[in-house]
Every structure is written in structure tokens, then in C-alpha cells.
């Protein structure tokens, strides 16, 4: 059995954690403002598809990245309007966006590239394999700073905890929530873009395969705080890295190491944390509740 704990594993962990960090921090903005964001999965897909397509045409990954961000913002604006303007059930709206983003990329891809499965390969020199990784680790302190050291962050947290208090202090609850959900779309859009033009070199159907939900899990596991959430992302990225490394590795007895058990670690941990077995994970108090006041 060769050693699996190597420098390569560390790099692999960092790269696999990167999309999770972007998306979970996006989710943090939204959820801390009181809007559940189950749509992270769909937003990531939007980012991934758009970034890959635009990079393919423009020949420049940075333009592709910006397009991915724009797509994330556009898709999250649907969620924002449904939840904030029309008081839609936030979970249902998020699920609708996830379903939309399974279909829409394939639908558009089918006409753009005559293939509903994937976008064309992007040449290696047009990928950005590392920059988003570095930026992800800048994002964490930046998010922390915005949330805890700026007036915007103060208002955002207040709106998610006790909107009536923020309202009484003259803060517009709706405005804060709109900005939070759109920021969430931008960040999750980067996470998605990194999947298609960083980690791999094309978009494939449903290529997030649950990473949006893992990001959500990391957010809960990290108790809606930047540094803890980053650590959760690293942990989940590590489990994924290990499970990739273990493929084909056999125990001395000649048996496979079942991958599946490593894959489910993030989900099992999240359930345990939610039930309150490892410390309390307290959600922002006003999460999921539309804010309406009597007039």
C-alpha cells in the first residue's frame, strides 16, 4: 500500500475545497441575511456552464470568469425576487432553480455546441487552475471583515437575526436581503466557474454533482461563520481528495477500500451537527421567514 498522505494530496484537497469555499461563503451572505439558499447547486451550474462557454468563445478565462459571476447573479436574482418580493417558500424556490439549471445549460448547450452533454474542450493555456484557489483563501478573511467590521455586515447580520430590530433602527430589510442574495450568486458563480475552467476544461451535465449541497452542509457545519466554514470545506475537500486517491488502491488483504463510506462523511457529520451532538449550530434566527410589517 503506497503512502496516500503526500504533497499531492494537500494540493488536491486545496483544489477540491476551492469551489466549496466560494459557494459556502456565498451561501453565508444569503443565509445570514435570512434567506435560505438551497439554490447554490443551481447557481454553481450556471456559473460553470457560462464560464466554460464564454471562455471557449472568447479564448480568455478571465472574461469567462466574469461571465460566470454574471450568470450567478442573474440566476440568484430569480431566487431573490421570488423570496423577497413574492414571499415564496425559500426552499421551494431554491429547488426550482436547481431543476432549472439541470435543464437550461443542456438546453442552450444543445443549440450552441450541438451537444447537450458538455461544452467543447478548452485548451489548457486558457484555464485558471490556481488563481481562484488563492483568491478563495483571501475570500475567507474578506468575508469575515465585511460581516464583522463594516456597517454593511452589521446590518446584514441584524436583518438575518431580528429584522424588526433592524427595521426599527431605520435599516431597509428588503434592500439588505436583495444585496445579500445577489452577492451569494456572484460568489457561488465563481465556485461554479472554477469547476469548469479551473479544475477541468469543460462543462459537463450536472458537473457539480452535489457540491452546492456540500457547500450548504459546510456552511451549517461551520455554524455560518467564515473561518469555521472554511475548515469544514477543507475537511470535505480532504475526504473527496482521499476518496479519489483511494480509487484502485487495495488493502493488503487484496480488498478494495469502499469509496462510498468516505463520500458520505460530510453528510453524516452535518446531520449529527444539526441534531446538536457536536455543539449547537444555531441558524440565523430569522432564516426562512419573509419579513412583512403591518401598515
Amino acid at each position, binding site marked *: 500500500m503506497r503512502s496516500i498522505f503526500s504533497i499531492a494530496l494537500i494540493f488536491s484537497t486545496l483544489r477540491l475545497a476551492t469551489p466549496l469555499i466560494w459557494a459556502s461563503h456565498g451561501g453565508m451572505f444569503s443565509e445570514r441575511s435570512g434567506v435560505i439558499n438551497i439554490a447554490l447547486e443551481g447557481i454553481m451550474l450556471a456559473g460553470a456552464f457560462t464560464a466554460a462557454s464564454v471562455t471557449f468563445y472568447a479564448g480568455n478565462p478571465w472574461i469567462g470568469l466574469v461571465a460566470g459571476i454574471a450568470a450567478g447573479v442573474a440566476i440568484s436574482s430569480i431566487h431573490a425576487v421570488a423570496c423577497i418580493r413574492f414571499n415564496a417558500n425559500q426552499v421551494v424556490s431554491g429547488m426550482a432553480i436547481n431543476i432549472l439549471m439541470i435543464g437550461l445549460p443542456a438546453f442552450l448547450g444543445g443549440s450552441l455546441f450541438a451537444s447537450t452533454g458538455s461544452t467543447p474542450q478548452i485548451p489548457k493555456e486558457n484555464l485558471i487552475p490556481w488563481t481562484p484557489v488563492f483568491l478563495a483563501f483571501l475570500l475567507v478573511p474578506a468575508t469575515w471583515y465585511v460581516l464583522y467590521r463594516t456597517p454593511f455586515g452589521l*446590518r446584514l447580520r441584524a436583518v438575518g437575526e431580528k429584522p424588526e430590530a433592524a427595521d426599527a433602527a*431605520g435599516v431597509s430589510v428588503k434592500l439588505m436581503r436583495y444585496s445579500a442574495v445577489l452577492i451569494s450568486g456572484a460568489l457561488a458563480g465563481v465556485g461554479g466557474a472554477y469547476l469548469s475552467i479551473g479544475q477541468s476544461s469543460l462543462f459537463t451535465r450536472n458537473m457539480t454533482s452535489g457540491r452546492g449541497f456540500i457547500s450548504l452542509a459546510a456552511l451549517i457545519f461551520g455554524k455560518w461563520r467564515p473561518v469555521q466554514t472554511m475548515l469544514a470545506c477543507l475537511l470535505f475537500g480532504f475526504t473527496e481528495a482521499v476518496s479519489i486517491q483511494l480509487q484502485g488502491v487495495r488493502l493488503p488483504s487484496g480488498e478494495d477500500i469502499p469509496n462510498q463510506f468516505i463520500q458520505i462523511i460530510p453528510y453524516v457529520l452535518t446531520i449529527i451537527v444539526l441534531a446538536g451532538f457536536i455543539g449547537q449550530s444555531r441558524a440565523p434566527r430569522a432564516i426562512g421567514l419573509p419579513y412583512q410589517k403591518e401598515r
Partner: protein
Amino acid sequence: MLELRDITKRFGEVLANDRINIKITEGTIHAIVGENGAGKSTIMRIAYGFYTADSGEILVDGQVRRIDTPHDAIAQGIGMVHQHFMLVENMTVAENIVLGSEPGSAAALDLKSASQKIRALSEEFKLAINPSAVIETLSVGQQQRVELLKALYRDARLLILDEPTAVLTPQEVEEFFTILRGMREQGKTVVIITHKLDEVLAISDEVTVMRDGRVVGRVKTKDTNAAELARMMVGRDVLLRVEKPDADAGATVLSLQDLRVMGMDGTPRVDGLTFDVRAGEVVGIAGVEGNGQTELIESLAGLTEPELVSGRVEFEGRDITTATAKERKQMGVAHIPEDRHRRGLLLDFDLAENSILGVQDREPIVSFAGVMLDNGAIERRARQIIKDFDVRPANPALPARSLSGGNQQKLIIGREFDLHPKLLLVAQPTRGVDIGAIEFIHRKLIALRDAGCAILLVSAELEEVTALADRLLVIHEGKIVGEVDPKVATTEEIGLMMTGGHR
């Protein structure tokens, strides 16, 4: 300093404020008193821009001002401390105070200079608050002082305090009043909304009395006394009388021994009650709302988490302190809840389905194999209740939501009477019910009493409890402060006990 002219405000069909005129003199402490629902919070929320008046105008320093949002009010130097604190529990004092008017740039929150200013204010007004403390670690009294600081930080000249002492211990109340007097000396104006007359007399310079959405009196505190204020507050124009024979009380049905019920926040709501209710009598509980009546009735109905209840409750001699709601119902305890929308009805269900709530698992409602609902039996039951209790429109297929308040209430009462209870717990039986239905409900309650049922009645309407009760207990802050004979006691006397005006 502040003048409210001809302010009218409706919520749907309810007229909350009816051409209100209030004038508040600069540098005074002004009390606004009235029973719950008198409209005193509403009028002050209008002054603070939380609600918008339907008509009327607001003058600040003699100038007509538009106050449409709290922001406008703050700009005019008006601050408000709400009954339920508007504080974000997991944030610090400083963060809460600066929220909405943050110092520093958009890129950097300057909590340091804010903390200095807060510390200075805290010293000036003797509030003893540490700006870096987290709200949830503070006592209720301290949280209230944070609310004061919030207003002072925004340079409020006028502070509106909504029921500020409701959550304080007597000792904290004393400290709090000292702070308020200090503020008055510094030139601040204070409006205090309350229903506690002893406090009004202790702290205020002027009093405005409200009842049923109107101003019914304006006096200088030094020219009045508790009895006069109580009369203005609770007095009614029309006297309501219920013809009833004297009670023929039988065996003890319900017996409480030192019953205590905790609130979710860990403070006692029902604080050591001991009394009996016998078959064939109505025991009334009079008191200003929020003094433990809700918790008392809910715990007796088995709707309170058992770990919040201590003491002993006996029903026909059996200990039922920890019995579930279902067990109590089966023993013969019926319950007419105070909030019929929250507790009493399934608003989207039809009348027939509502008529079986609580007996959905009993014969004859369930028939085949003890599982299948018998539609015939449900319909018969619903029609019977509708007929006996004159529920209109008399159509069991209508959703409960479509009925008027009075008819919804008659449906609930009919449903509970149909259980043939040995004990009936009734809270606010005629709230939001029209005059005709009130009389009907009262007659039904007396008829049930005469049939031998023990009734425990809670009502915020003093007239109602006096008219119906055979014995009247007065509750204040979770304790029984006295028992009176409803036939001889006067409104002033009871009103005074209810408002803590005399012990």
C-alpha cells in the same frame, strides 16, 4: 414638544385610534395609561413612524412634520423603547446601538469611537452598561437600559417607553425610575405607556387616559389619585348584567396547590397559586392581561411543557399535574382558548372538520376498526352544534375562516360544551364578538354552570368576570392578590387591585 392632532388609525375593521389628541410638554414625564387594547401603543407607534396614521397630523416643536418611518422620527429627536426589545441578541451593546447610524466609513465600522460615546452617555445617565457586552448575557433590566442608550445615542430629546416596567422586578423598577428622573433633569422628555397606576403616580407629571381607542381624560398627576384613574381606565358606559341564580356549589373538581409555571425565558409567570374550583360554580380571574392568566389556563389544559410546571394540580382528587392534553380531555376537561385563531380553530378546514377537533379518535366519530372517520356522525355533530349554538351561516361545509369572530367563537364553545365537561377552562370567551353573541355566550356559560360543571373563567373585561363569576380572584404578576365577592365589590376597588395600586 410633541403634539398629536386628530390621529385616526384602523387595522382592517378595528378602529385602534379614534381622533386622538395628545400634547406632551417638554421636560416632563408624561404617562399614557389604559387597558390592553385601548390603543396606547398604536398611537405611540404612529408617533415613531412604525405605523402610518390614516388621518391627523403630528407636530414637533409646533411644526407639522411627516413621520413615515422610524428614520424620520429619529431625525426629529424622537426615540422609542418597545415593549419587546428591538435588540439583536447575539450582537454586542455597541453593535446594537450603532445599527442603522454607524460611525466611520462604509469600508470600516468605527466601533471604538462609538464605544467611547456610549460609555460617556452611560456615565452621564448612570446606566452602567459595558459597550462590548453581548446582549444575551445581559439581564432584562440591563437590556432595557441598552434600549435607552440607543435612543440617547441618536440624540433623542423625547423618549417613548412602551410598558417599560412589565419585564422588571420591583427593585429594578426603582432603579429605572431614578434613571428616568435623571433624564428629566437633563432636559429630556419622557412618554411612558403603562397600565400600572402606582407607577403612574410615582413617576409622571401628567397623565393621558385612553379607553377603547379614545382619549378619555387628561390630568396633572398631582391633581389626581389612583381611584379616579382606575375609574377612567376601566369604566364602561353601559353596564352589563347577567341574570343568574346563586351558585349551588358542590364537590371540589379542580384543586391547585402552589402551582408555578415558568415562561420560556425562565421567569415565573404563575407564581404559587392555590385555589379550588367546585362543581356548579364560576370562579373568575380578574387581572390586567399578561399577568399569568394565559400561562395558568394553558398549563391547566395540559399545553405547557411539563418541565416548566411545578406544584400540584388535582382533578376530582386525582393528580393530573403531568397529564397530557388528550388525557385531560378524556377525563372531562374542556377548554375555550383565548386565541381562537392560533389555538382553537383550523381556519382552512371546514366547520364539520373543526367540530371534531379533540374527539377525532373517539366514538362515534371514528367507527370502522377504530380508524375510519364516520362522515355521517361528523356531519350530525356539526349540525347539532350549529343548531344549538346558532352558528351562522349554518353550513358545515364552509371553511372556518369565512365565519365572523362571533360565529367562530360559538362554534368552539359548542364543540367544547358537547364534550359534557366536568371542568371548563374559559379564556376571553367574548373577545372580538358582537353584542348579541356576547349575551348568548354568557347565558350558555351560566346554563352549563347550573348543570353542575365547574368553570374557571379568565377575562380581561372586568365587567364580564364580575357579571359571570360567583367568586372572583384578582391576579397580579402571577400571584393572587385578593379574593372579592363580585356582587358587592366596586369597579374601582377591583381595578385598583388589578393594577397593583394596593396590596
